[in-house]
């Protein structure tokens, strides 16, 4: 109603709205410029990427992406000429720089590792978190408060503080450089967050829903599945994003515990720089592709995320 908004003492005035808008736009620009720069760099040629003054307008090239996905060897022009015609754009570009494609790079398997480990650990953390949150929310758990505090206390120190013991433990257990080891580790870090966040959400779902379902002929598990879970999707989505962002971006443990088969993208991307000079477009291409899954996931769930991070602020 116009009457209430026009004279409201609670609603911000037009001026303060304008100032707030300006601050938000400025902050958004500052945040987005590095990302745009990375995106632009990924489409530059290596000379353009290090040009001074920096080029804002340039001829786009996918050389960076070619370099990201391949390994190349330098050859004499005679040898290159002796080869047949180039088999694609990448082949052609590489030959112009007196190189031939020797094979695929490790980027794709590293990226797949990241997908498996991040989504795997997110799934485990959210799965365990939902069940324990439900348990804490609905049943009389002995020492529930102490247990919840203990779960929270696992986050009192940065996870990396226990890196050395974990490194030694993983070596003994044969979990070093395995996807399973990384999934277990990220799950362990995330599960406390998941339990706490989800308990808040599940507490807000009246237990009458399950009681109604159980009276209507369902088992508790069925009631949980059919009445609690659908209403907890907001919380689950928000929790999943938080867990995924941590697992996806995690660098320190990944650098320490993975080196070969289970290496994730974060420790791999910086190593691109060392292969055949400072190949900034390839690094930028790797970073750009690395951003895509989390971006897509967040955009898909952004409604839930927004409701999720403000949950409990306003009681219905």
């Amino acid at each position, binding site marked *: 109603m116009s009457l209430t908004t026009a004279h409201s003492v609670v609603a911000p005035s037009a001026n303060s709205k304008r100032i707030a808008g300006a601050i938000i736009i400025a902050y958004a620009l500052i945040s987005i410029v590095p990302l745009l720069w990375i995106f632009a760099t990924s489409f530059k040629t290596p000379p353009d990427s290090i040009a001074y003054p920096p080029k804002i307008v340039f001829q786009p090239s996918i050389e960076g992406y070619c370099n990201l996905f391949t390994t190349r060897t330098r050859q004499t022009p005679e040898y290159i000429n002796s080869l047949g015609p180039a088999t694609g754009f990448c082949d052609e570009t590489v030959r112009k720089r007196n190189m031939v494609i020797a094979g695929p790079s490790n980027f794709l398997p590293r990226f797949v590792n990241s997908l498996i480990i991040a989504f795997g650990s997110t799934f485990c953390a959210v799965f365990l978190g939902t069940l324990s949150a439900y348990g804490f929310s609905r049943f009389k758990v002995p020492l529930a408060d102490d247990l919840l505090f203990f779960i929270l206390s696992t986050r009192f120190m940065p996870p990396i503080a226990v890196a050395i013991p974990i490194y030694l433990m993983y070596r003994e257990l044969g979990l070093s450089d395995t996807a399973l080891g990384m999934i277990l580790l990220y799950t362990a870090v995330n599960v406390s967050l998941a339990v706490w966040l989800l308990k808040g959400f599940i507490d807000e779902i*009246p237990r*009458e*829903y399950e*009681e*109604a*379902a*159980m*009276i*209507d*002929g*369902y*088992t508790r598990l*069925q009631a949980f599945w*059919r*009445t609690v879970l*659908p*209403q907890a999707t907001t919380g689950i989505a928000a929790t999943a994003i938080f867990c995924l962002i941590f697992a996806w971006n995690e660098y320190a443990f990944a650098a320490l515990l993975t080196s070969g088969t289970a290496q994730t993208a974060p420790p791999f991307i910086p190593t691109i720089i060392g292969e055949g000079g400072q190949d900034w477009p390839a690094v930028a291409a790797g970073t750009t592709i690395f951003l895509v899954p989390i971006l897509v996931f967040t955009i898909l769930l952004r409604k839930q995320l927004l409701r999720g991070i403000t949950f409990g602020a306003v009681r219905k």
Partner: protein
Amino acid sequence: MAEIRVQHLRKAFGDFVAVQDSNFVVEDGEFFVMLGPSGCGKTTTLRMIAGLELPTGGEILLGGEDVTMLRARERDIAFVFQLFALYPHMNVRKNIGFPLLAQGMPSAEIRTRVEETAKLLRIDHLLNKSVSGLAGGDRQRVALGRAIVRRPKCFLMDEPLGTLDTEFRDLMVHELRELHNRIHATTVYVTHDQMEAMSMADKIAVMNHGVIEQFGSPREIYDRPATMFVADFIGSPPMNFLGFGGGLAKGAKEIVVQGAKVAVPEVREDIAPADMALGIRPEHIRFDDASKLRGAIYGTEYLGTTQIVAVETADGIIKARVPAEIRLNAGDHVGLALNSARLSLFDKGSGRAVRTAVHDTASQGRAQHG
């Protein structure tokens, strides 16, 4: 449909006894209301019948079968919650059909049953709507639909009208009773609202502190309250009490209150001298200057056809319901004439009603103390 028999039912949460030694029988097809202030154990009793709480002791028989320790889903009962508990992620049709889905009923049959039920409740035009957009009364009907669609042994309702607006509530009270008259389902209904209880119930149990104070028809409970608590809880304004001392002998027809002789229904038991109370419903008081029982007008509440008059007596204020036409001024001295046939007598110490001629026709009006 089935009868519900509750025997020596008891529930304790740690040291707190929520329900103690409850005994009652809800006959097949009866509308039974459990009435009492909040925290009196009525909801706990209902949840034990439903299987949502397990009793500390006693038995619950449903249609002759002992279900005391059975899981809720094995009891074949339906429950209507105060907050309705409609699933927000399902539309009206799915909400009503949800209990049938649990039984693995074929979807075509679910469809017909849901439509039949919706028609009965006059919500068939809402079947494909989302439940979150429904008005209070319609949400209530959907909740009822989910309960009756399965044709269970009995219905349990926990203050189902508690969250509705007054206008909806009056409508739903009427609809609920009408629905009951059509399908004759054994119903246990919990409320703290005496008007709901009086207007719907075949039988009422009045509970207080985990104890059933009285079990009987609305008329019995109103006319022959078994305890002072019941007398005080039922009626608006509640029953007035005037204290008097001395014992009562079997056959006595008169007592002395504040120096005035008051005729009472013939006493049917001997009572040793103790603090007693005379209970008078406000509508059983007339103003009569010839009466020796006197008081001063303290204030009046005009209600249209009647008025409630507060009269200050030597034993505190009592309220009378008299025709609205009578002109009264604060401070006026009046004599109070009581309708002798309708008076109750109580033992103040135990709160228990004294047996009098009023009880002659009653068989179930007694309190069931534990």
